[in-house]
């Protein structure tokens, strides 16, 4: 026993030594290569002036800003594309997943066709298709935009809608809306508890009333001013434009990933034991309550880990946007900045660490959500919840 212990220890030490030797070898080569070529090592370049401009920036950025700021701009663009893609993919995935479960054969077969067609095509091809075929080949040029009244313009430069400029009372409006939403959710929770305890009392009129408060407030005071898109010589001087680059990435990621999410949704719902549904039926719950109280929470539990993986895939896959000039972290920082500074190792290391952190934070968030679901609804209809009569 002792002998094997010693052997294990020596082997592990040997492994570490081997790894260290490899690192040392590569490190030695790197330093030698670098010093031979008079390249500096370190992150000092982050404070230098970048000098190039970026098409889409969520924070103010000019050419006079630093390379460090290009990192932030790229990171925010990655996050923007990821968040929009995740929301769209989830919605689309749920719709398609439910369609596949539909008793209507036409619906379920269309959904099956959608899934089988799109998931077997590489995501990069999705992105290129939307950009090169749809935007650059099909959509009309800027001056011959497809128009919907004064509101919506679609052309090769993107999709433009009116922008909403917040007025002085916008803050008050936000607070009122927030409180109203919290109230509605709270009432929903109360209602659910009541249903589970067999108390039947109408709460929805109160919810509608709560919803009306911010609507009426907005109607009376106008917290936002709508600004219609105005065409100047080269572009829209007002309004919000979703650029084709962002659009292509987002739509490609949403449609591609939705095929996977729909399969997850479908199998999770199928995995809910039939007895649960029958029990709920016999308790006299209406069909939407069955879905809300029995099916979805249980399906949720099996759904979250694989869906998290898909979200992580989306975040990583938005880097494909660089094939269509979407200025994300990879394109801006690992692309232009790397090239302007020549600090390959430093830039790539930072990019990798950043992606790792985003992935880690996302997994942590989803794990936390998953645990909260299991904690709250783990024993969904526990003995205490069911009224004993």
């Amino acid at each position, binding site marked *: 026993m002792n002998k*094997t212990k010693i052997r294990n220890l020596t082997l592990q030490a040997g492994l570490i030594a*081997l*790894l260290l030797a490899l690192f040392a070898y590569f490190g030695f080569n790197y330093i030698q290569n670098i010093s031979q070529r*008079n390249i500096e090592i370190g992150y000092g370049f982050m404070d230098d002036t970048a*000098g190039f401009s970026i*098409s889409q920036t969520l924070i103010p950025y000019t050419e*006079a800003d630093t390379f460090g700021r290009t990192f932030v701009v790229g990171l925010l663009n990655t996050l923007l594309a990821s968040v929009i893609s995740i929301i769209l993919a989830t919605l689309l995935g749920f719709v398609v997943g439910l369609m596949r479960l539909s008793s209507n054969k036409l619906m379920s077969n269309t959904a099956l066709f959608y899934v089988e067609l799109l998931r077997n095509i590489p995501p990069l091809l999705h992105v290129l298709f939307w950009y090169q075929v749809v935007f650059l080949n099909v959509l009309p040029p800027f001056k011959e935009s497809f128009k919907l009244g004064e509101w919506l313009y679609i052309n090769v430069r993107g999709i433009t809608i009116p922008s909403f400029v917040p007025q002085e009372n916008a803050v008050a409006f936000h607070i009122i809306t927030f409180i109203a939403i919290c109230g509605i959710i709270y009432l929903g929770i109360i209602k659910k508890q009541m249903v589970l305890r067999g108390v039947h009392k109408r709460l929805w009129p109160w919810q509608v009333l709560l919803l009306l408060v911010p609507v009426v407030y907005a109607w009376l005071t106008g917290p936002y001013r709508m600004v219609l898109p105005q065409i100047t010589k080269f572009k829209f001087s007002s309004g919000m434009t979703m650029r084709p680059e962002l659009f292509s990435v987002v739509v490609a990621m949403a449609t591609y990933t939705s095929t996977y999410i729909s399969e997850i949704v479908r199998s999770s719902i199928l995995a809910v034991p039939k007895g649960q549904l029958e029990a709920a039926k016999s308790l006299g719950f209406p069909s939407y309550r069955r879905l809300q109280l029995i099916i979805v929470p249980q399906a949720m539990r099996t759904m979250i880990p694989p869906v998290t993986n898909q979200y992580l895939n989306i975040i990583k896959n938005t880097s494909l946007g660089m094939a269509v*000039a979407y200025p994300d972290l990879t394109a801006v920082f690992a692309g232009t900045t790397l*090239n302007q500074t020549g600090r390959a190792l430093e830039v790539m290391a930072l990019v990798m660490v950043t992606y790792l952190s985003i992935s880690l934070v996302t997994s942590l968030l989803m794990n936390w959500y998953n645990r909260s679901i299991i904690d709250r609804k783990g024993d969904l209809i526990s003995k205490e919840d069911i009224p004993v009569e």
Partner: protein
Amino acid sequence: MSLKATFKLSAAALITALLSLTIVSCGSKETAVTAEATAAPAESSTSTLDLVKERGKLILGVTAGVPGYSAPDGEGVWQGFDVDLGRAVAAAVLGDPDAVECRPLSAKERFTALQSGEIDLLCRVTTWTATRDAELGVNFAGVNYYDGQGFMVAKDSGIKTLADLDGATIAVQAGTTTELNLSDYFRKNGMELELITFEANEQAAAALEAGRADAVTSDSSQLYALRTKFKEPENFDLVPELISKEPLGPVVREGDDQWLDIVTWSFMTMLNAEEYGVTSANVDEMKASSDNPNVKRMLGVEGGVWEGFGLGADAGYAIIKSVGNYGESFDRNLGAGSPLNIARGYNALWVDGGLQYGMPIR
């Protein structure tokens, strides 16, 4: 249990061994497969000249396809103005202009490829700047094309001068000096700019063609080249002004002066040949009969200039015989003899009022 652990351990040890083996074996596989870069440590002791001679082939970094400069022809053979310079060096060093392997590189990869020794010479429409010389560990061996950054626009866009571009959407290739010049120029003149950055110049040009951008910017020579690939090239034109100096030239690794000299003087030979009227057609005749001492030294009839570089006496002759002089190469690839039809302009010889000046061979 402990046995099991031992096996697991050896399994893990195997991982690392395998990883390192793959790396090492792939390194050696490469040397076996492409007979490239013999494992000799390339300190300053192994010169690029020796490497190239040993390999019997010059590895030339080129663009991924810019017509006129470096692009594969219908047979897949690389042709162009930059390729000609590489062929001239190969002719001088190895006596065979065809002993050139072209490595297409993106703008981003080019310096790394040179620094790491993947290529021997970079002729990839690369601008000579102080920063590159100072920071990237490379040296420029001359200027084979004096270029400047221009803008291509659609003729019906109403853009006639640079000032008309205020507020325009402009497409550009990522990772080039072009990108910086553009931002500088617009900032300096208080003009507004929306920039879309593409991985390749072709994509940027396609964005102009599709109307995604109002203009595409690049070195004017490349814009001419890109235009030949348009569906309706006659609808597009260059704005007359240029916003930058772009001296394009061959690049070598820093720290190998002999190799730098060889590249520089291969190019100078082409310039001198044009100046003295030596062409690929009449080079034999000139070698036999010319009594111009410059020509005699250039063609190795007298002087022993070339031996000083570690080359054969007829290196200069081989260059002219196989590639021709500067003017021939220009006409064939870029000028009247090519679809690009670019005027000599700054690239005329100094005797004709241009900037190309061959240093004396003596």
